[in-house]
């Protein structure tokens, strides 16, 4: 009796092995440099937003506690006190697992690409996807900081703003680190995309039938 073809289960086995390897590599060797990237890129963004010095905008303190100097608008009378004062700062402390969590998307993305069929230029997909995923952590930390500022200083802010920040913080903190690597792999890897979603090219021989059908007629594993 022929065994049913289940490419998704073979993929699950491959991705599990690859993820174990990539996660070990990430945890043992790469998490330090990646956290330094998150610290630096977040500080540059804060520098651009609030006019703080990049060296002090994000500081990693003893015990792995991060301190973010978040810009908040200066009080209305600040302009009288000192010319050009637009921002004051709120110092936020966060535990290191929060920025670390933002970098876990990388080993997951690498595992997905390594487990997917490796056509020509797969390594370019790996590099390009890695570059895309490196953009998310500083943006997510800024969203986290904005949410913390709103809850601390402006608890009675307009409901739409509160809702938007709750939503953005939930997406960036809980969903993005895990969903972004899968979405990036599907978006950047054409063979993987076809495997999961089916063919996007019309099959000339079955074109007339496809018009009646809700899905493509080619079965591509």
């Amino acid at each position, binding site marked *: 009796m022929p065994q049913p073809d*289940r490419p998704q289960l073979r993929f699950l086995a491959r991705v599990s092995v690859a*993820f174990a390897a990539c996660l070990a590599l990430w*945890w043992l060797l790469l998490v330090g440099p990646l956290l330094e990237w998150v610290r630096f890129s977040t500080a540059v963004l804060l520098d651009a937003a609030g006019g703080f010095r990049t060296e002090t905008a994000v500081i990693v303190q003893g015990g792995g506690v991060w301190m973010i100097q978040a810009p908040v608008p200066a009080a209305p009378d600040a302009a009288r006190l000192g010319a050009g004062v637009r921002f004051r700062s709120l110092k936020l402390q966060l535990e290191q697992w929060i920025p670390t969590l933002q970098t876990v998307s990388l080993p997951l993305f690498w595992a997905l690409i390594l487990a997917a069929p490796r056509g020509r230029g797969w390594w370019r997909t790996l590099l390009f996807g890695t570059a895309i995923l490196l953009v998310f952590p500083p943006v997510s930390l800024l969203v986290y900081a904005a949410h913390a500022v709103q809850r601390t200083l402006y608890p009675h802010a307009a409901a739409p703003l509160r809702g938007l920040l709750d939503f953005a913080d939930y997406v960036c903190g809980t969903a993005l680190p895990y969903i972004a690597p899968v979405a990036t792999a599907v978006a950047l890897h054409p063979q993987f995309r076809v495997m999961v979603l089916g063919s996007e090219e019309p099959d000339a021989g079955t074109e007339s039938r496809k018009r009646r059908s809700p899905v493509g007629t080619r079965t591509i594993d």
Partner: protein
Amino acid sequence: MRRFLFLFPVCLLAGFALLEAYPVAFAVAKFTSSLVTISGALIHLFGGRALVDGVILASPEGFAVRVENGCNAVNVTILLWSAILVYPAPWLQKLKGLAAGTLILHAINLLRIISLYYLGRYNRSWFEFAHLYLWESLIVVDTLVIFWGWALVVRRSVFRQNAATG
């Protein structure tokens, strides 16, 4: 496929936004505490001991886990539902996929909650690692595989249907 790639993120973000609505948040909180109750019952069934208090699963020795958003698999359920709902397939197939996929996903999530409970009792460092980095990533991969398996079944059934009708 372009339609899918456009509608999927829209549907996903709409699903996450719905979580902020009070009635949905209330229902999710009830669902989360029922997950903890089921986890406690399963632990008892297999001879273990656990105390259940709302969304907290505690051991008699004092270790406790609090199941919150992110650990209740609601985010990956929204991920799966978004993918299935926008994928071009007959509605009956979609309903079957939603039901079966959700059941499989939450069975895996119960395994996650119970395994984290035991891991936390014996090693806090490993608990933190598995909780934050390992299990959540694996459950997203499982969601992808569940969706892929369903989409494959849909494509094959349509292929067979088309072959039969000539």
